[in-house]
């Protein structure tokens, strides 16, 4: 690596739809790189050595980032080959790159650590990952790679049940299928994908992309039983009779509500209900699609995570005036930077240091306004490093006909109530191998973490698959012995 390279300080930007245009539709906002632009950006990478590369350390699943980026440059004269090579590097650690390329908080992970940041802009790793996945999908290169993989799989003759088809469950299923296990996913909803389908909106993650990632799993032999609710349709005990191991990837689906008067007024949605209606049920196409949603003229979204941004930006696309109300300050906003920027560009306003205390109705059961207490921050910090906040005793009232509550979620109660399953503060407790208190039952993703991220859920899926493989190998060997 003695070659002297010229450092290009500025990022090659990805084209985006202008804000005025995009608030009128659910079409994807970011348009992604072309091959030429991707190569230009890839050339900026310093190719830090594998053992040192700080971007890899920042990635929760340790993708060989310089490794995949270098392929784009190395085979620049043969785009198909470049992408195929890059994709197989990514696939070694991450089976859903089209998704993670779009939704990972790169600024807090790989890109946070990138050494280019010391001299200029950090490498746009997320968009490069997304480019590789998109190009491969459009050209059928991912199919090609898959076809080369499938015949090499050696069947193990053991069965694994996966609960939930979100990123954790899908990843565990994929890894286990590649290892030769017979895998069946039990999914409560009518579509697989978890939050990727029902939560994250089309303009950020097109559903056709999630569907194609799931199709690949089916090609690996994974069976998906939708409409099957574990805890009702079948219990974990029953699954253990039929399967050799079980993985719980049921997420954190139960919405947290605000304990304030008026919470059940019409016009108050949980973000989950609102986003499910909009994304999974396509309420933005009502009445062509049968499911309605009501978005008033003035919408207040409570919370400031990714869920809040998605709800706010979705509401904006129905023509509403939207305010994000958060009880802390701007430095504690937990959403991805790109989403916050997009939200601002789209005309969404932010109110900080306000905490809802009452929802005021019109006397007919409909919401009219929200009463907030003004908050202030102290110097003291809480266990998560956020500044503590206290009420000031001053109040403000904001008029609103729709409120969307996005203040977090708990794991699904139907699973958590399984006898013998150890749970603390609503989360399933696991050991370092992600095994729960029930032998042979593993868990990962939001079900054990509370609300986390797609890539962490996938990381758990991979780790659990490895642990399940070891567990089942022992089981197999002791049977044969």
């Amino acid at each position, binding site marked *: 690596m003695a070659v002297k390279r010229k450092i290009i300080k500025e990022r090659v930007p990805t084209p985006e739809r202008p804000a005025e245009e995009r608030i009128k539709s659910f079409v994807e906002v970011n348009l992604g790189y072309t091959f030429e632009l991707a190569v230009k950006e890839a050339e900026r990478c310093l190719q830090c050595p594998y053992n040192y590369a700080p971007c890899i350390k920042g990635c929760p699943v340790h993708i060989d980032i310089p490794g995949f980026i270098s392929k784009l440059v190395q085979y620049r004269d043969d785009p198909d080959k470049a992408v195929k090579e890059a994709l197989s590097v990514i696939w070694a650690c991450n089976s859903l790159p089209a998704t993670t390329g779009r939704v990972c908080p790169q600024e807090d992970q790989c890109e946070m650590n990138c050494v280019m940041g010391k001299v200029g802009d950090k490498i746009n790793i997320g968009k490069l990952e997304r480019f590789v996945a998109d190009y491969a999908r459009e050209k059928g290169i991912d199919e090609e790679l898959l076809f080369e993989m499938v015949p090499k799989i050696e069947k193990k003759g053991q069965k694994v049940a996966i609960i939930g088809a979100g990123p954790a469950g899908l990843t565990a299923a994929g890894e286990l299928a590649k290892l030769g296990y017979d895998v069946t996913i039990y999914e*409560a*909803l*009518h579509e697989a994908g978890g939050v990727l389908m029902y939560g994250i909106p089309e303009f950020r993650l097109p559903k056709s992309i999630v569907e194609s990632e799931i199709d690949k799993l089916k090609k690996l032999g994974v069976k998906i*039983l*939708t*409409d*099957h*609710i574990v805890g*009702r*349709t*079948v219990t974990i005990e029953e699954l253990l009779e039929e399967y050799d191991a079980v993985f719980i990837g049921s997420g954190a*689906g*139960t*919405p947290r*509500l605000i304990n304030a008067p008026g*919470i*059940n007024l*019409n*016009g108050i*949605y*949980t973000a*989950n*209900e609102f986003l*499910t*209606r909009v994304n999974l*049920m*396509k309420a933005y*196409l*009502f*009445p*062509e*699609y*049968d*499911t*309605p949603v*009501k978005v008033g003229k003035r919408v207040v979204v409570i919370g400031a995570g990714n869920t809040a941004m998605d709800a706010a930006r979705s509401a904006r696309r129905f023509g509403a005036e939207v305010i994000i109300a958060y009880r802390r300050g701007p430095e504690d906003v937990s959403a991805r930077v790109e989403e916050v920027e997009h939200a601002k560009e789209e005309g969404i306003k932010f109110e900080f240091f306000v905490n809802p205390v009452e929802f005021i109705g019109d006397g*007919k*059961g*409909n919401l009219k306004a929200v009463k907030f207490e003004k908050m202030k921050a102290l110097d003291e910090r809480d266990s998560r490093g956020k500044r503590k906040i206290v009420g000031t005793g001053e109040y403000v009232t904001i008029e609103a006909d729709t409120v969307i509550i996005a203040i977090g979620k708990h794991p*699904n*109660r*139907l699973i958590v109530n399984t006898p013998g399953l150890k749970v603390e503060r609503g989360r399933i407790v696991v050991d370092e191998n992600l095994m729960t208190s029930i032998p042979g039952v593993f868990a990962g993703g939001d079900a054990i973490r509370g609300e986390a991220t797609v890539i962490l859920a996938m990381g758990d899926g991979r780790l659990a698959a490895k642990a399940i493989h070891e567990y089942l190998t022992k089981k197999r060997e002791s049977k044969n012995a």
Partner: protein
Amino acid sequence: MYKILEKKEIAMRNTWYKIHAPHVAKKVKPGQFVIVRAFKNGERIPLTPVMWDPEEGWIVLIVFTRGKTTARMAAELKEGGEILNIAGPLGNPAEMEKFGKILAIGAYTGIVEVYPIAKAWQELGNKVTTLHVTFEPMVVLKDELERAVGRHLLETVPIDMTKSFPENMKNVTKRLTEKVRELLEKEEWDLVFMVGPTGDQKAVFEVVKEFGVPMKADLHPIMVDGTGMCGACRVTVGGEVKFACIDGPEFDAYKVHWDELIARSGYYTDMEQRAMQEYMRLMQQAAQGGE
């Protein structure tokens, strides 16, 4: 995909579907429901298995044609065809205890949800009387109920064509409350149970309350997922927020905040009407085009 083994109109606006859904048939208990999504661009709606066979793997749904989704089901689903999604069973099974003498009431198609519960209560040794109040042409499950419980009472109201539908419905509510009052005055009861429109449930509860008889009701808030993940179905019960799909659907009628539930159920009425009008317009267009 779930195959429709049988489909027939068993009374005006009441359609019977026998469907192959082994995952539900194997598990379902009286009091539970399923969520059905019949069409690709369709809505998810809750419906109740009325009968089932775990060995043969079928369930029966009886559906009242109400708005667009149920109208589409009646018009577009075919015997031998398929329903896209049936998730379940959902909700908690009805409490199976020896309560004693029970009055189990169903208004309109609500009686089909009463049927499996009343039948199981009777088999358990309770003395069950079922009361069905509906319009004359909408009587369902008469013979089945007469066979299943101690006494089946049927009260019908004629449809007065000179009056609007809401006016007609008022007559059903009137007959319903009068009949309940009469039964409570004449006899001693240990429990009243009711399924039917929320407004009628409240009206009946007002009567039952005067007599102080315990009352349970299966609630029908609007639902989306039915698994506790959306919060659409929330109701205030005893001052606490409950999710009807995982905490219910059965609740103590004395604790339910009825007015809130009624207001919440009507939230989409204008949009539902719009969807229905649009659907009827398309149907008319198709009919004209076909001539």
